């Protein structure tokens, strides 16, 4: 958003409509805000009423410029509270979702999607909110079914891609042996393949990237190694092409984690090296390039370079992402056979987590570090040399 949307000159005309706030969750100063307004992912966009300090609209994920402008209109209208009819319904849906009332949001989303004419401009977003609420509720089957049914009624625009993406995610979460799982995946997979083949809908690159990633996972799960490899190669090629179009290191590094994941899927970590080295040189204060280099060097078996990269990353990181860097460091140390040092890295991660504000002590990350610590294996004791008589 910061590199591709908030830099668009078309948005200048909205400058006076809002007070604009940027919250970096790697800064401990974001703690009190996050306690009041928790997020489940990045980015998350909010419109907040300053009089009540309540959420009028919450949107998880990146948006394009036209989607962003629509969010501004809907957020402003939600605060004015003067709308009627379908506008009032989408305002109620936004309020419910924004305040974490996901069951109510799913009910309101279903009701609004049924009531709104197919060409009502707010309908695609209402369907997205409905699916997002079902996703939050982990109602995988209703979510996937809704995506299959609603997809065909949507115009071929950004919301269509999101609906396919969310639906595929929900269907994939169903137990592998769930009856009907394959039948739900099939139409969404077909739609995803068609979207990736044409890529004719103007959406953020990372949305197409997410679709590629979901497809690779799906093909791997099915045991289709050739299909997964071909899709991962197409994914990497697409991202490389998009990276060449960018005009600044900040914009180009947005693609780094996606490209790295595609290269790792292809078992070609070395393809990420020059990209990450250039990112580290261009953005010397950013912990991400060396943190990613550590993973790439580890996968290449260059463990000393990997450890050195974690040291550079740790020197630059301040917030919750430090846990992930220490976790990577532990995997490298374990590979080197130094289990004691690996355990210390994980202990350091847990000790650091305890110093963070409560709202930045992410349960998932902490549990993952604890699990990694529990599973550390002591190296097998060396076999004593056979005694010679």
């Amino acid at each position: 958003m910061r590199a591709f949307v908030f830099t668009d000159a078309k948005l200048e005309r909205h400058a006076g409509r809002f007070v604009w706030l940027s919250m970096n969750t790697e800064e401990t100063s974001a703690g009190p805000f996050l306690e009041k307004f928790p997020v489940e992912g990045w980015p998350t966009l909010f419109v907040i009423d300053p009089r009540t300090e309540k959420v009028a609209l919450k949107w998880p994920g990146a948006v394009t410029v036209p989607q962003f402008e629509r969010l501004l209109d809907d957020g402003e209208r939600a605060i004015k509270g003067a709308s009627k009819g379908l506008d009032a319904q989408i305002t109620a849906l936004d309020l419910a979702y924004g305040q974490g009332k996901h069951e109510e949001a799913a009910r309101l989303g279903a009701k609004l999607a049924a009531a709104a004419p197919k060409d009502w401009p707010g309908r695609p977003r209402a369907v997205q909110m409905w699916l997002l609420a079902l996703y939050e509720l982990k109602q995988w089957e209703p979510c996937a079914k809704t995506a299959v049914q609603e997809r065909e009624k949507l115009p071929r625009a950004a919301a269509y891609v999101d609906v396919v993406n969310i639906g595929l995610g929900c269907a994939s979460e169903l137990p592998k042996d769930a009856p009907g799982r394959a039948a739900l995946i099939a139409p969404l997979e077909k739609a995803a393949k068609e979207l990736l083949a044409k890529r004719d809908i103007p959406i953020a690159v990372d949305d197409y990237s997410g679709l590629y990633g979901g497809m690779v996972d799906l093909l791997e799960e099915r045991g289709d190694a050739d299909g997964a490899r071909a899709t991962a190669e197409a994914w990497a090629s697409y991202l490389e092409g998009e990276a060449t179009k960018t005009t600044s290191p900040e914009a180009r590094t947005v693609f780094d984690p996606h490209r790295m994941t595609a290269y790792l899927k292809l078992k070609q970590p070395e393809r990420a090296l020059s990209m990450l080295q250039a990112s580290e040189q261009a953005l010397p204060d950013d912990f991400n390039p060396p943190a990613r280099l550590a993973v790439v060097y580890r996968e290449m078996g260059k463990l000393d370079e990997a450890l050195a990269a974690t040291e550079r990353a740790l020197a630059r990181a301040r917030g919750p992402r430090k846990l992930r860097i220490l976790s990577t460091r532990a995997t490298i140390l374990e590979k080197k056979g130094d289990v004691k040092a690996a355990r210390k890295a994980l202990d350091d991660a847990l000790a650091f987590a305890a110093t963070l504000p409560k709202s930045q002590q992410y349960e998932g990350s902490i549990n993952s570090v604890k699990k990694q610590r529990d599973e550390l294996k002591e190296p097998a004791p060396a076999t004593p040399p056979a005694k010679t008589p």
Partner: protein
Amino acid sequence: MKTLPCSALLLAASLSTAAWAAPEAPREVLPFLENDYAGAVAQAKAKGVPIFVDVWAPW
């Protein structure tokens, strides 16, 4: 599925540092306050406008 020709792949894979260091990053056109929720609330109350928040993390 569409794939780029090999030459495009090679070009992307061999991006030089010089290419990265080139132009200045485009600036944000909206006047964002950084990590200052209390300041944003005070300003928004004074101006009578809502607050828009982008919650992000370096990725």
